[in-house]
């Protein structure tokens, strides 16, 4: 299905005189997991809050497709109550009552979503199984581990079976094992048909989970696409990392000039060469090392990751800003 469930049209957010989000256009496809990545303070949370109407955009509009079959778009801000019933939101920090049990939290929020007692009971049982908190249903939320708390928070966000689930940094403050668990849960929820928008700085995980990704940098979301699309768009080739002795990397960099080399990066204790033809560059590298009487200690060739894509974009933007 390639139908959009949410769309942003030239959404801009200004606090006072400070612009937080420059006009953003975005369409979220029904059933996808859309990852939003961005540096801290880049405006990810503001963007997510704007999506649900918690923060009103200074200009532009946010539309929600209330009927995917007939494409019946409604304005989010004008239909907040309706949107609240159709969207689930899990904030960066778990949002529940610590002195209520897992069951009580779910029951309470279910009631706030106007679910009947029967519906709440049914949803709670399903959800507890889904988030694997069935055994902890009568434990006070404050006594849950970090990972369990995060799962409870997500469960609270989807107690009303929303069509769209928005997750803000779902794995922040979690160790890698617990984070993996959460990502697994996100996938499970998505498999049940819920569209998910997730903002995270856990680039390695978001890369594996997301259907599409948007990179929020310098107040805008210009780079949107699948991982491959982004890599293709941003990539500066592969990276050849090497270390040599005595390690006169400056001299090496001067002697390594080649059209195939996109960039040479001196990292102090190693040299990184960005190139689309690492095999050819590797040959030249060996010749140059010999010539400069440098002994090769270590060498490896790495492919571009989302982190690299993100770093490149961020770096490029910063350079653009400086040049301007």
């Amino acid at each position, binding site marked *: 299905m390639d139908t959009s469930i949410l769309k942003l049209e030239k959404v801009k957010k200004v606090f006072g005189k400070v612009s937080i989000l420059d006009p953003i256009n975005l369409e979220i496809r029904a059933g996808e997991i859309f990852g939003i990545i961005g540096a801290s303070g880049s405006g990810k949370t503001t963007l997510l809050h704007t999506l649900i109407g918690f923060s009103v955009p*200074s200009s532009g*509009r946010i539309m929600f497709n209330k009927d995917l079959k007939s494409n019946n778009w409604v304005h989010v801000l004008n239909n907040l109550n309706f949107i609240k019933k159709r969207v689930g939101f899990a904030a960066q920090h778990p*949002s529940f*009552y610590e002195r209520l049990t897992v069951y009580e939290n779910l029951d*309470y*929020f279910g009631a706030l979503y*106007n679910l009947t007692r029967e519906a709440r009971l049914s949803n709670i049982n399903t959800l507890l199984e889904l988030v694997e908190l069935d055994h902890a249903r009568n434990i*006070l939320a404050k006594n849950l581990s970090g990972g369990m708390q995060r799962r409870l928070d997500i469960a*609270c966000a989807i107690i009303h079976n929303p069509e769209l689930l928005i997750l803000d940094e779902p794995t922040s403050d979690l160790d890698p094992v617990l984070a993996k668990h959460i990502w697994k849960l996100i996938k499970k929820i998505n498999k049940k048909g819920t569209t998910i928008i997730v903002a995270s700085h856990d680039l390695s995980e978001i890369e594996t989970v997301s259907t599409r990704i948007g990179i929020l940098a310098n107040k805008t979301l210009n780079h949107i696409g699948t991982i491959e699309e982004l890599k293709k768009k941003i990539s500066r080739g592969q990276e050849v990392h090497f270390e040599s002795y005595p390690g006169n990397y400056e001299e090496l960099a001067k002697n390594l000039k080649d059209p195939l080399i996109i960039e040479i990066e001196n990292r102090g204790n190693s040299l990184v060469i960005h190139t689309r033809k690492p095999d050819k560059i590797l040959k030249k590298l060996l010749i140059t090392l010999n010539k400069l009487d440098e002994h090769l200690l270590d060498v490896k060739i790495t492919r571009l990751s989302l982190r690299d894509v993100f770093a490149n974009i961020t770096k490029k933007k910063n350079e653009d800003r400086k040049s301007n």
Partner: protein
Amino acid sequence: MYSQILLKRKMKTGKVIKKNIKLLLRSKVSTLVLILGPLLIIFLVGISFSTSSFNLRMNAYSESYSELSNSFIQELENKSYRIIRSDSNQSCIQSVREQVSHACLIFPPDLEIENNKVNTVEFYVDQSKVNLVYLVMSTLEDSFADVSTEISKDLTDELVSALFSTKTDLLAADTSITKIQNKNTIIIDTSSSSQNKLNSLDFNSGSGNTNVNTLVDEIKIDLDNLISDSEDLIDNSNDLLEDLEDYDINYKNNESNQDTFDDDISDFSGYISDLDDTIKNGYNLSTKKVEKITEQLDEALSSLKNKLNDAKSANSDVVTKLDNLKTNANELKTDSEELQTNIQGMISNINSIQITNIENIVSPIETRINFVSESSSNLSYLFPSLIVILIMFIGLLLPSTLIIMEKNSKSAFRLFVTPTKPTLYILANYLTSLILISLQVFIVLSVSQLYFNINFFDSFFITMISLLLTMTLFILIGMLIGDLFSSEEMAMLTSVSVATLFLLTSGIVFPIESMPDYIIEKIKFNPVVMGTEAFKQSLIFNSGYGSVKQPLTLLFVSIFFILGLILLSKRLKTQYFKPKKGRINKNQLKKNFSFGERYAKNLPEFIISVQNLNQEKFQKLLDDKSYFNWVVYMLKNKPLAGKIKDKKTKKEILDELVKKLKKSQKK
């Protein structure tokens, strides 16, 4: 449909209340404060105020304690006040400054009641303890008044006893004076009589002597006469004898009688002869004796004369003295009469004293303070204020804490993302607080009913109404505080500050009467005053609705006022429940509706502009509420904006706009 919505709302409200109570009860501190707090308060209050006395500590000092100063101290100790004897004047005063004691009493050395001696007992009290200073002063004054009254009674008793003893003596004196007067009168009379008698005495000896001589002469004459008479008698007798002899001759015819007669005549002649001799002898003897008598009489007369002269002199002296005596007696009489008049006046004055009872003299007017309510301890009359204070503190702290807890809780954000109206939270918070405070008040009232005999069933309905309105008002104020602040500390601080302000201006701590008139006027709007007034009227005086009408009305009006402020606060701080809506960009709004090369400026131009919009643009502008906004902000016609607000198609909007245009053209 409506009932379903109502049911859902009830369910939601119930859930929020249940959640609030669970959260509070699961916090050990909250539970302790909420459940044990009021019990602890009422327990402490019950212990503190269940008696009618106050536990006061006092220091006393005197350079030299007398029996009287000790009796004052004893009197205070009898009233269960702790008295500590200080070593010096300074340490006594210092004890008050250091709040070790409530008052310092400095007795003058050797305190005694003496004439022309002023006994001043000095009290030192801490005036900064405004709530206690008047109590301490009153207690001391009362205690000292008691002892002073006792002393005064003794002195008066002594005085009155002396007075009545004097009266008895005066009565006796009066009788004595009367007796004296009588005796005096007798003396005067006797004196007068004696004087008269003495005056009538003749002490002239001369005439007496003459008389004696005369008498002697007369005796002599008499004797002479007697002799003469005797001689005459003898002569006569001799004549008689002769006659008889003549007679004898006549009687010689009778020889027998003659003899007898002769004998008798012979005897008689002998007798006459003897008599003559005897008379002569007697005369001689008598003459001698008379002469002797005369001599003796002369001597006696001479002596008598002397004595009479002396007696006359003495008599004259006595008469003079009697005269003086009489004069003095008369003066004494006058004086005694005057004295008697005075004594009678004194007796009359003493008799005219109507009040002779010591109690009545010392305390001529007995004061008795009657309480308008039947109360046996301080707790009874402090109870309404205590309950209102309890309600105030919990009413301000609980809802504000609940709201702040909610605001600062991890779940705060989730409240926004659920389809719940702000009014539900207002209602739920109000009901949660009301339930919990009611529970506490119920506990307190039950404990009071059981253990302190404070009956609140007599005017149950009005008491409950008063409590409900008081609770509601304080809860709403607490909610307002919770809404206005975002940190628990600030809300707590504000709640306590507001509570303190209410308390200080309630007349419970400071007397309202000590404040300026313009403040007193405003104080009746103090919720504590309103609540206390209503509760007191209903609980203590068991008054009907008429008495509590004013405070209840004020409470009612205040509730609506605070509710209005809460709603206003919600409206102003909508970001808590509701997102802020962006400002309308009028320039952008204007640009949306072009009319030729410029933008639509009036209704006809706007109609044409809307008519020319393609469907996609029309829908976009409809979603943005641009038609509504243009009519509101550009045309400034809110009624027309209201009419097109819910229109979904171009035709519907244009119809309304054209209708309005036609109407205005007709005009």
